[in-house]
């Protein structure tokens, strides 16, 4: 086993999928010769050739449309959108065709596409490079949305996503790309696509988060732990479908729920989680549900991005509010 970063895990999974399955094709901007802006595809074109790893023009609508067409003809396409803010031209193809192909053909044709893209800010990038737009995809039937937060999960879930017959939106937490390392063996084993992971068990409060916010959330949990407040931290991982059972089980135990996400609060995924807990577990709650989120404004330029992204202090404060209630 090698100690690798999250972006290494993605590279390893892509290499494994290309080697194992001749139908797998990678497409995207600068993914070939350049190896991708984050080096997620580094070395893959050199190893598997230009037919398997294809550079595309700077046209996201084309990338998504190509993916639909190739998938309909039996290929398994892994497309990279360079930054999440660039996805909008692709949304028509994703929402109107990719997500609907199975339904439109009454199950005769599926659409095995993975769209990979960086998710979230925190790397001092310019406009359109730091968005957290997961709800755009979660709202569409026919799409799975996944967001791993560790190298091992990036590897296992990307393999699962590529093997999945239906389209998967694969969100890669940008600021975790090289944040930490983990022992990951290139064993070709996939992880389940629809499960949340309990990262830390606790009795006093449940914190649900995903993507890069797991980093600050675990720090907050450690800080609270030193005061004797034991937080249970759930990495949602699968953003659509949501593994509500894991959340409800935890809330039944702790009685308190804090949802942390980097995306804006208004109509964010936290609202969906809060609504479901209110529907199914209201009588288990000891305090109102708390959300710690980004703000309802444009993700700011890099000088202010740290003011936007929830901090450890804001998460701790959110937990304290539920403990008062």
């Amino acid at each position: 086993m090698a100690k690798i970063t999250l972006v290494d895990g993605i590279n390893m999974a892509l290499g494994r999928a290309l080697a194992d399955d001749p139908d797998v094709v990678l497409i995207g901007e600068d993914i070939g010769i350049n190896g991708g802006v984050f080096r997620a595809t580094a070395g893959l074109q050199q190893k598997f050739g230009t037919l398997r790893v294809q550079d595309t023009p700077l046209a996201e609508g084309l990338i998504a449309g190509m993916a639909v067409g190739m998938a309909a003809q039996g290929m398994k396409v892994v497309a990279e959108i360079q930054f999440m803010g660039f996805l909008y031209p692709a949304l028509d193809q994703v929402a109107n065709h990719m997500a609907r192909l199975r339904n439109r053909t009454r199950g005769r044709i599926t659409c095995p596409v993975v769209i990979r893209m960086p998710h979230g800010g925190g790397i001092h990038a310019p406009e359109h490079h730091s968005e957290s737009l997961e709800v755009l995809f979660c709202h569409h039937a026919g799409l799975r949305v996944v967001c791993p937060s560790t190298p091992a999960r990036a590897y296992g879930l990307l393999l699962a996503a590529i093997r999945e017959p239906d389209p998967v939106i694969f969100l890669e937490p940008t600021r975790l790309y090289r944040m930490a390392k983990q022992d990951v063996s290139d064993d070709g084993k996939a992880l389940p696509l629809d499960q949340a992971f309990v990262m830390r068990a606790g009795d006093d409060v449940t914190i649900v988060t995903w993507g890069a916010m797991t980093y600050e959330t675990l720090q907050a949990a450690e800080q609270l732990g030193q005061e004797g407040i034991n937080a249970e931290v759930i990495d949602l991982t699968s953003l659509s479908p949501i593994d509500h059972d894991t959340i409800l089980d935890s809330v039944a135990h702790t009685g308190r729920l804090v949802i942390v996400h980097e995306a804006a609060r208004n109509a964010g995924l936290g609202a969906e989680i809060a609504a479901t807990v209110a529907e199914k577990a209201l009588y288990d709650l000891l305090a109102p549900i708390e959300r710690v989120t980004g703000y309802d404004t444009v993700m700011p330029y890099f000088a202010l991005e740290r003011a936007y992204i929830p901090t450890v202090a804001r998460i701790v404060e959110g937990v304290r509010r539920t403990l008062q209630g």
Partner: protein
Amino acid sequence: MTRFTLPDLGEGLQEAEIVRWHVAVGDQVKVDQPMVAMETAKAIVEVPSPFDGVIVALHGKPGDTVGTGAPLVDFSLAATAATATTDPGIARGGVVGRMPESDTVIQNAPQANARTATRRTRAVPAARELARRLNIDLDAIRGSGRDALVTLDDVLGASPAAPAAAKPHIPVATSSMRPAMEGTESGEIEILRSLRRAMAQSMTLARDNVMECTVFDDADIEGWSAQGDYTVRLLRAIGAGCRAEPGLNAWFDGSTQGRRLFHHIQVGIAVDTRDGLLVPVIRDVGNRDAAALRAEVNRLKAGARDRTLPATDLRDFTIMLSNFGVMAGRYATPVVVPPSVAILGAGRISRDVVAVDNRIEAHRRIPLSLSFDHRCVTGGEAVRFLAGVIGDLQLPA
């Protein structure tokens, strides 16, 4: 000397402009220490040092454009030799912005923290809140709802029972038989909030349980010999009403159809406070003289205003008086608070035009509104009571 060339700072850009140097020739630098801020077409990027060493030369000054691959910094390396990754361009420079990096290792083993096995009481949120405000331990309540869910009624039913001596015996004690203002003896701010909340709950109880009927009349007090003590006269009149018709000085439990008449008259007086309705109780109204009643009214009103009344002064009234007309309002439909069955409302005294024999005169009159629970009080009983009240009020003294 080791030369460091400008790496691709993002997405295949060809060049970048020097914004400012953070180091100077001769500086000792460490790996990852920021050396220079470079502006690309996309962003300002901090370029860190790939080496431990001493700066020998800086290629360019702020404002200069440097091509990707062109010399940027020359180093004299420390004796320990280069620690840079073999390709700094790939490892560090070739992304947009600044990537956080660390050698932190995530453990694959599951976290050692474990849950302790506890099963908490499930409760309706409003019940949980009420229990908190009344200082009742929710876990000690046996929930009556589905899957032992604790309901509002369960919490009300669990509110602390009064000492037996202070409380008249009730055939069947249910939540609906409970005077509404228990647990308000403290002067804490939280209790003030709960006053208004308790009012809402007792009013809801009343709405859901009482079949209320209200009758209106006036007492002509033109004949009062002196100014007269308005509140004390009203209390005395209630005593007279109860003598005329004992059926209104009673408690009623609808669930058992049980009615209990009381020998002593305990009048709850509605006192308006900033935090809500308080109902202190004047004991044994029928057997006290005017001076004693006045002293007791003064004590209770003062205590109600500064919230110093003990719980014993706030429960177990058998009939209520609402003297609401101090500022405005002639008639009202006062709400009967279970388990009591009657409430007398007194409005603002005014000079009314009345017919006396065949003449017209202006007399001072008290407008009266008597609400009663028609489930156990008949209309005839109510007006007999009201006639007794009016008859006593119209006495000169």
